[in-house]
Every structure is written in structure tokens, then in C-alpha cells.
């Protein structure tokens, strides 16, 4: 802050003095600022963007402590303290949101997280470079598709009426299975979607870690009579252990973040009890019912927990001697 506040005072002081006389730290700083004026000009559109669309909303969270009405604006809306937070925490919805968020996150952690590791271990063992490239090209592709496309594909595969899955069942005379509006299957469907879309993409970081393993280690393992499976288990896996640990920690830091667009798109009345998570709740209550203050409080609760978790996760990751994300 100091640096940004000093220039105005210097304008006043510097005006009366010869520039050569101002030999102090501040004087030099001001000279640097003037010298960099075109750099500031380059940065200006970006700075304005961050101010308006990142920092103003950050201060906009104060509406969580008000009874905000759009007509009165933030300045004139009455302050109500933690009333909205109290209402949110005592609402039975709160526990459901919490359970759903944790449930979906844990499903992801258990069934999604290990897959990119396993796939990259096997990809690494492919002898044909060309085959490896082809597989990679295919499995990375879904990462770039929108959740609308993914949910569309899911409907076309699993819808009760015209979905391929049920059509195949029907030709074998089996009963139709309602996959998409079954609360018991909802989390599983989300996990399958995530695996299809992102598991391939997730291998990139592990393949990068594997690429730096010393080839001599494999030679030594072969000398000792290790087969390919044992090489994977005793050489490759330990070599990427720190990458795995760090990614796991960072993943835990994001445990409050579940796929918002994904859930919104797969949401339907029949699964609402297992599908509502913090973000979808904020959207429904806030935007659709215009309860701005209450929903901002709900969103702020999630953001703060998320922030704390991410910071703790980064600290932990650094303890493991890794760089962390920042």
C-alpha cells in the first residue's frame, strides 16, 4: 500500500524542489513511476477490469449483512448484522447442502482422483509412441466440451424413453431403468460424467512427473528381475508420490467446490434432495427468488470456508517441499 500512496504527496513536494535534490527513497520511487508511465497505461485496462469485476463484488458481499434492495442500493439499505447467516444455519436446507456437497466431493475423491494416476501409469508403459499419442489425443478431447454437451450426451445415452441404454435393455426384454431421476444414482452419474470428461485430461500432470523419472531406475529394477507391473509399482509410483500427495492436498482444499454447471444441468425435481449444493442453492434463492442478501450470506459462507481450506492446503503442500499453487 505504501508504494501506491506515496506519489500524490510527492507531487506536492517535488513541485517546489529541483528533481536532483530529492535523493531520498521516495524521490527515486517517483522517478521510477514516471519512467514507467507507459507500462501503467498498458496495465490500466486490466487493472480497471480487476477493480470493477473482482474487487467491487468483493466489497459487494456486505449486502449479506443488510436487507439489500436494488432500489435503495448498498448505501441506503438497512443493516441487519448476522441475521441472514443465523437464518441460513438454522435452515434445515443447510445440512442437506452440506451433506450433498461433501458426498459429491468424496465420491469424486475416491472414484475420480485415482483414475488419472492409474491411466498415466499404463500410458507410460506403452511401447508404441504413436499409439500412446493417439490414446492421449482421444482422452484429452472431452475436457474441451461444454457441460451442456456432456449433459446432452448423458440424456441421449440414459434417458428413460429414447436413451440408448434403455433401448438396449428393451431389446433384451428387460425393464427400463430410470437412471436420470433416481436419487440413489445421481451422485454416481455425476462421477461418471466427471470421469468421462476430465480423467484423461488429469493424466497430463502425472505424465509430466513420470517423464522426469531417471531411466536408470528401471534398468536397475529389471536387473533385479522386476516385471512391468512391479516396475510400475516400485519405481514409477514412488517417483510420482510427491506429485500425488500435493494434488490430493490441493484437491482437499477445493472440497467445497463441486461442478456447478454440471449439477445445474443434471438437476431435476426428482433428485433435488441429493442435487442441491451451495452454488445451485445460491442461484435458485438469490437470482430466481431475488433474495439477494440471504443468498449472498450463503455464498459468502461457502467462499470463506473455501478460502481457508485452500490456504491451509497450500501451506501443507509447501510443507511437502512442493511449490503449491502460489
Amino acid at each position: 500500500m505504501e508504494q501506491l500512496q506515496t506519489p500524490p504527496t510527492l507531487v506536492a513536494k517535488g513541485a517546489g524542489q529541483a528533481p536532483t535534490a530529492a535523493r531520498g527513497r521516495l524521490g527515486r520511487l517517483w522517478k521510477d513511476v514516471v519512467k514507467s508511465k507507459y507500462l501503467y497505461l498498458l496495465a490500466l485496462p486490466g487493472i480497471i477490469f480487476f477493480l470493477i469485476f473482482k474487487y467491487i463484488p468483493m466489497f459487494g458481499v456486505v449486502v449479506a449483512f443488510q436487507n439489500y434492495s436494488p432500489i435503495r442500493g448498498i448505501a441506503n439499505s438497512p443493516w441487519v448484522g448476522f441475521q441472514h447467516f443465523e437464518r441460513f444455519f438454522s435452515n434445515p436446507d443447510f445440512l442437506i447442502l452440506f451433506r450433498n456437497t461433501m458426498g459429491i466431493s468424496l465420491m469424486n475423491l475416491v472414484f475420480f482422483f485415482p483414475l488419472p494416476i492409474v491411466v498415466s501409469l499404463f500410458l507410460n508403459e506403452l511401447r508404441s509412441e504413436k499409439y500412446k499419442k493417439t490414446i492421449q489425443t482421444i482422452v484429452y478431447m472431452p475436457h474441451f466440451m461444454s457441460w451442456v454437451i456432456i449433459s446432452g450426451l448423458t440424456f441421449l445415452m440414459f434417458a428413460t424413453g429414447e436413451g440408448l441404454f434403455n433401448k438396449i435393455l428393451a431389446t433384451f426384454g428387460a425393464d427400463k431403468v430410470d437412471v436420470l431421476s433416481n436419487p440413489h444414482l445421481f451422485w454416481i452419474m455425476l462421477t461418471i460424467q466427471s470421469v468421462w470428461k476430465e480423467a484423461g485430461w488429469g493424466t497430463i500432470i502425472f505424465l509430466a512427473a513420470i517423464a522426469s523419472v531417471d531411466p536408470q531406475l528401471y534398468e536397475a529394477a529389471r536387473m533385479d528381475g522386476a516385471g512391468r507391473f512391479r516396475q510400475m509399482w516400485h519405481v514409477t509410483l514412488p517417483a510420482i508420490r510427491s506429485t500425488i500427495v500435493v494434488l490430493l492436498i490441493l484437491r482437499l482444499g477445493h472440497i467445497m467446490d463441486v461442478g456447478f454447471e454440471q449439477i445445474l444441468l443434471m438437476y431435476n425435481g426428482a433428485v433435488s434432495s441429493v442435487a442441491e449444493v451451495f452454488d445451485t442453492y445460491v442461484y435458485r434463492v438469490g437470482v430466481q427468488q431475488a433474495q439477494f442478501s440471504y443468498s449472498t450470506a450463503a455464498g459468502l459462507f461457502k467462499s470463506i470456508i473455501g478460502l481457508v481450506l485452500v490456504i491451509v492446503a497450500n501451506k501443507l503442500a509447501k510443507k511437502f517441499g512442493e511449490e503449491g499453487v502460489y
Partner: protein
Amino acid sequence: MKKTLSDRIFDVFNVLLLGLIAVLTLFPLYYVFVVSFTDPVEYLKSSFILFPHRWSLASYSYLLATKAFVHSLGNSAFLTIVGTACSLVVTAALAYALSRKRLPGRRLLLLLILITILFSPGIIPNYLIVRNLHLINSVWALILPVLASGWNVILMKNFFDGIPVELEESAAIDGCNDITTFIRIILPLSLPSLAAFGLFYAVGYWNTFFNALLYLTDSAKWPIQVLLQNILLNSQNSELGMSAYVEAPPSETLKMAAVIVATIPILIVYPFLQKHFAKGAMVGSVKG
């Protein structure tokens, strides 16, 4: 080195396993592709189709004759091109300025950008600022709030860090100021990297869904993803009839054709994207 029997078994197993994974990845796309090109009559007659006997463009010609659909493709194209251009200019200019070590206040600015990565105020404060700026129902509501991401600024700054100071010093001797140096020297040098960032931004804009749902109530302004979701949703409740945006109830083949059309631009840029994975991948996968 001689291959042992167990080595060979492993290789065969491995090739098959990864082949299976690739097939599972491709299958939904293959199925939707095939049905979208299937003659609607044949589709209705057969129980399920894994390969069409009679190919037909009926679904595509119907879809592309639907004004709302073509219009939303146009909206998305505009959004993607203009959005990507704006994002690149703003991100690159800011990132370059931040990469110059002589810039006073550089650390503070980087810290402020990092904070925006770590803390998001949530949907409602973002919604309120867009509303208060009277951007509702404007395509700019889909561009301005996502103009730059903290991640991309920092990634691009890391890239510009590698450009030696000597380059700008010699440009300064030739009479360039920082802005002309940036435009005449730095940008042309960084084109391949800018292209990579541009592709990632472009995919983001093409896939814009939630912001459009949030900020655009006027269906004439919808990008393709929102219209596509409306077309697809009607599968769930076809008895409710069609939304006002497409004239006739779409059959399954029509939906599949719509999915394919919305995917094609991604498939077109995909080979170019692939070249640049490594740069963005680390952050992307960490972010999850």
C-alpha cells in the same frame, strides 16, 4: 533386451486396456454422430442403431433452416471472436507490464491479482455488479466480467518474464516507448504463445453457458449452449410441447445433430489446442 513372456502378456493387456478406454471415450460421440446422420424414418423403425443403413442430412437441413438455431450460432461466433480478442489484448498488456521488474508497485498488483484467484465473492455480488452496470441482456455481460482471469494473467506474465530486458533496451534506443515496444516487438515475438492463450479463451467463450443463463433473458441473444440446453431439455418433457424457439418438436436425431453442430468448432480447434497443452495444463489440472 529380450522380452519375456510375461512382458508380452503385459503389453497385450496394456494395449487392450487403453484401447478400451479410448473406445469408451469415443462411443457416446460416435453414437450421437451416427444417429444424427440417420434417416429419421429408419431411426423410428429400428430399436437401436449403431450403424445407419440409410444416411440422411434431414436433421441437419431442418436444424440449419431453423432461424433461432442459426441465430444462436451467430451469437456464439460473435461472442467467441470479440471476447477472445478483448481478453487477449487486456491480459497480454497487463501481464507484460507486470513482467517488467522495474515497474513500481508490481508486487502489490500481483498480490491483488492472486487474491482474486483465492477468494470469489460468489454468484450474487457478481450478478449485482452486472445489473448495476445495466449490462443485463447485453452480449458484453458475457465478455466484460470474464475479460481476464488471474490465472491467465500470471501464466502469461511468467511467459513474458522470459523475454530479455536487452530487447526493450535496444528498442528504447531506437526511440520506442513501452507501448510501441510492446506492440511492435513483444507481441510479434509472442504470437505462438498468444495463440495458445487465445485458443483456451476461445473455448471458454464458445462454451459460455451459466453467465448467459444468468444475464440474458432475451432468447434472441442466447449463445448456442443455452439454446442447445433448451432443445435437449425438451426430451425430458416432450408432451409439454416445444419451446417457442424452435418451430417443430425435435426428434432425437435433431437433438443429436444439434449436439454435433455445437461440438464441431471445438473439434476444429482441437488439433491446434493440443500443441499447446503443456503450458496451460499444470494450472488447469490443479484447479480441478
